[in-house]
């Protein structure tokens, strides 16, 4: 039988101990405030928990031994609001790559560590486009476009970017002409691969401006602003492969290895592990008074506090607020309400441009998931003229071209996607003969596009499915739109000359699948929006301090609070600065409660 346990009040209560909460924990606890973090997963230590067992493709990539258990909760997905949403029932090695964030450190336990700032244009996408290309340019592309400028500009965000990059220990250079930086990245780039260097030379010759792809994997031993020591990358692979490998040295940045240690050292920080938050309770004034959670034994704990920070994974921010009656639920029929509104996804819609480069090597695991390559932004954002085009934004180049070939073993992710009658018997088997010892390698440009938020896509509570405790989980209604396909179809062919210049042969450009067809939008890896920050209370849930408009002692951060998507895959890097804005907001609120302006 479960009992109710009342916990001692804390200044700050963190819902989930992922990337965003890590910042709040470090900033507020070291400033002398009491902080309690409630995390549904365990606390893994890289040297003890990961080191002996991480080189395990089946256990990591298929059985997801360190990931969120789907029987506890999942989400459901459909492409439009006339459909019944299918629940994600399992992980697969090729598509269902998202891990829903689990354990202290959250989603960053599993990622490639691809980083990079969003450029100035991202934050003023709406006004910039209107003033440059006319007031109807966006609605001509997407009649249901539904977004504002961010409440802060790129310049406003610079100090927060710097704090974030310091705490995370980002490696890279400040040479990107499209994203001016006042301070350099704390660490130099990783060693370049021959393919990365070929891409650099080729794109430079074509007038582009390649820079080393920024990475959240430490290229040198490092100590961050909290005095937390970081080991350098040992380049032994088993790092990428759908981003799922955990890091055994802590070089891959993750709250558990960057910010949480600072909080633990402060003496003001307590963690409740294997604890599942299910409600935020509000008083008559609309403020949160406590949160309730189940512990591992099923007991209910009541945790009171002064400020609450919702650092849950993705759409759990939205569903936890909907379940608690906080905020104004979005109604798609009338396009009113803000909670659940503006969901987007940065992902590959195709087409892809691929070629074969005559550079050999070992393609088995060595290196890491996001170092070694180059990236350029000449075809991103509004860095080229969009007059007469049918899209805004541009090409996102993921981790860069020339990333180490062996970021993770590609056994499972390769053959699991190749189940077909043509792949039965000796001929297919022979394609695996010495597959990891190559004399030439494929190079591909994928297009991660700017998906524009539209009024059709949103998140709400699923009416049919419940989590392990009987509460509904998030349902996502989302598909790609015209902007994504138009961007990809226009820009990807432009990669053909780059591939040619690199010395590639067998260059092919695969066209994009049209909207509504079977495509990869059946999983969520880089989803954004749903509980957005903004200046307009009718379309946003949080203000620029990441403070809830209607519930002043509730803050949140994460990609889910982004006003718009970007063509960066790593939403973490754009959301990271938001966690530092929230930390500042919380500090201000604790000194002087009220809605911050």
């Amino acid at each position, binding site marked *: 039988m479960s009992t109710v346990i009342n916990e001692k009040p804390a200044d700050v209560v963190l819902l989930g101990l992922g990337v965003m909460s890590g910042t709040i924990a470090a900033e507020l606890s070291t400033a002398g405030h009491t902080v309690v973090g409630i995390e549904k997963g365990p606390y893994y230590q890289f040297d003890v928990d990961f080191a002996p067992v991480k080189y395990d*493709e*089946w256990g990591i990539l298929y*059985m997801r031994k360190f990931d969120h258990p789907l*029987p506890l909760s*999942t989400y459901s*997905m*459909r492409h439009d609001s*006339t*459909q*019944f949403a*299918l*629940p*994600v*029932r*399992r992980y*697969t090695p*090729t*598509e269902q790559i998202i891990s829903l964030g689990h354990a202290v450190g959250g989603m960053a336990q599993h990622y490639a560590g691809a980083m990079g700032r969003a450029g100035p244009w991202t934050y003023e996408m709406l006004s910039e486009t209107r003033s440059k290309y006319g007031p109807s340019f966006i609605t001509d592309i997407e009649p249901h476009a539904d977004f504002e400028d961010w409440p802060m500009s790129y310049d406003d965000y610079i100090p927060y970017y710097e704090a974030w990059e310091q705490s995370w220990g980002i490696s890279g250079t400040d040479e990107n002409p499209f994203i001016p930086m006042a301070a350099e990245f704390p660490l130099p780039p990783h*060693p*370049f*691969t*021959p393919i990365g260097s070929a891409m650099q030379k080729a794109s430079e010759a074509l007038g582009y401006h390649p820079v080393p792809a920024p990475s959240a994997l430490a290229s040198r031993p490092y100590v961050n602003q909290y005095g937390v020591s970081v080991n350098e990358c040992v*380049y032994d*692979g088993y790092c990428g492969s759908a981003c799922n490998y955990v890091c055994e040295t802590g070089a891959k940045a993750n709250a558990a290895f960057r910010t949480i240690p600072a909080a633990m050292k402060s003496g003001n920080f307590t963690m409740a592990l294997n604890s599942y938050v299910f409600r935020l309770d509000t008083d008559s004034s609309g403020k949160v008074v406590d949160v309730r959670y189940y512990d591992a034994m099923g007991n209910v704990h009541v945790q009171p506090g002064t400020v609450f920070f919702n650092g849950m994974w993705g759409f759990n921010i939205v569903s936890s607020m909907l379940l608690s009656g906080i905020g104004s639920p979005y109604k798609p029929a009338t396009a009113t309400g803000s909670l659940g509104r503006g969901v987007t996804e940065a992902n590959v819609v195709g087409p892809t441009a691929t070629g074969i480069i005559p*550079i*050999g*090597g*070992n393609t*088995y*695991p060595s290196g890491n998931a996001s170092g*070694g390559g180059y990236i350029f932004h000449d075809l991103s954002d509004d860095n080229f003229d969009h007059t007469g085009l049918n899209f805004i934004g541009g090409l996102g180049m993921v981790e860069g071209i020339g990333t180490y*070939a*062996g970021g993770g073993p590609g*056994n*499972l992710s390769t*053959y*699991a*996607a*190749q*189940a*077909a*009658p043509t*792949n*039965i*018997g*000796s001929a297919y*088997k*022979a394609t695996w*003969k*010495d*597959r*990891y*010892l190559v*004399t030439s390698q494929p190079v591909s440009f994928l297009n991660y596009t700017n998906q524009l938020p539209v009024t059709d896509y949103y998140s709400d509570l699923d009416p*049919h*499915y*419940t989590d392990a405790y009987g509460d509904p989980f998030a349902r996502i209604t989302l598909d790609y739109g015209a902007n994504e396909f138009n961007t990809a179809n226009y820009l990807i062919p432009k990669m053909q000359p780059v591939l040619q210049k690199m010395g590639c042969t067998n260059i092919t450009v695969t066209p994009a699948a049209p909207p509504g067809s*079977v495509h990869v939008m*059946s*999983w969520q890896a880089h989803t954004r929006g749903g509980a957005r920050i903004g200046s307009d209370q009718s379309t946003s849930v949080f203000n620029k301090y990441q403070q809830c408009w209607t519930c002043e002692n509730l803050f949140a951060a994460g990609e889910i609070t982004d006003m718009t998507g970007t063509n960066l895959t790593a939403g973490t890097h754009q959301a990271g600065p938001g966690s530092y804005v929230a930390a500042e907001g919380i500090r201000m609120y604790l000194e002087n409660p009220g809605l911050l302006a």
Partner: protein
Amino acid sequence: MEEEKRVEAMREAMDAQQAALAAQTRAAQASTDAYLAAQQEAKEASKERSETAASESRRGFLKMGGMVLVGAAVGVALGSAESSAVAVPVASGVITSLKNQYNSVVIAANGQITSLQSQISSLNGQIADLQASLDTTRGFITLSVTEQSLVEAIGEALIPSDSSGPGFQEAGGVYFIDRQLATDYGKSADMYMRGPFVMPNTAGPITVDGVTYAGGTMPVTIVSGMQYQYRMELREFWRYGLQAFETYCNSAYGGNFETLTPLDRIKALTDLYNNTPTSFNGIIPVDFFNEVFTLVWSGFLMDPLYGGNKGMVGWTYTGFNGVNTGDFYGEGQTDQQLMVATTATRLQPASLAQYQKGSP
């Protein structure tokens, strides 16, 4: 201590078995060597006689088919590529006598071959039995007798043992699948398994729990996390699928999958992919094909810790390193060299267990 004594006794018994095995192997080897020598001698003697006969006669020559056949038989039996035709002169008395002499040699040799072949095969069987009795990890946890042979046969069809190298059978892939079906995978332990259960790509309108959806459900790609919408756990999915597949093979190809010709096996598997079977125990055949394909390849290429990829044969075949990051066996390479190299270095693979042990 009692237990220590028992372990000691077991060790001794094992040592004795191994010694016996080694002795038997040596004996077999000795017999084979002796036979080979005898065979060589017989052949040389026969050749000498032929040459003598040839010099005695100036007439035309006739190629004797029987000799060719003998050569071929020896070649097949002992892996010799030799199968030369020997010329014999057509000279009545000499020929008959030589023919008789030669035939008696051939008959004797073939008798020896047959006898040695059966000895070798018997010894191989004994060796396999002894090895199996020494290996306490090879066995089945959940696959039924009929499932064992069917899974084995499907695995061989997908990844045949062929001239390019070992396949599913040598990798012991069936043990990988057995273990997976018996544990978390088979139990769908990490899957969300609550209802309602509605299949993807269902045309609308559909009504679920009293709610009508005009748009049905969306199509998803075959390897999506939303593809599996069955109520049954994966072990049961396999049980149903294997049964349905065998039934289908009987109706469409006239026998169990294991009895079909290699071509029909491929056809039957292709039918699964194409959803040809109209009745399949409630499973969409391609879903089953996809599950089987992934698990079969995993049995060939996942770490030996999981029961397949025995002796890392899959990794040796693909040139995969496992956890050998360049210096596991003292090769003197580093990750930093390998990750920027422009030519490939073949490394002997190392397994997770070896890595954890810290030495080869």
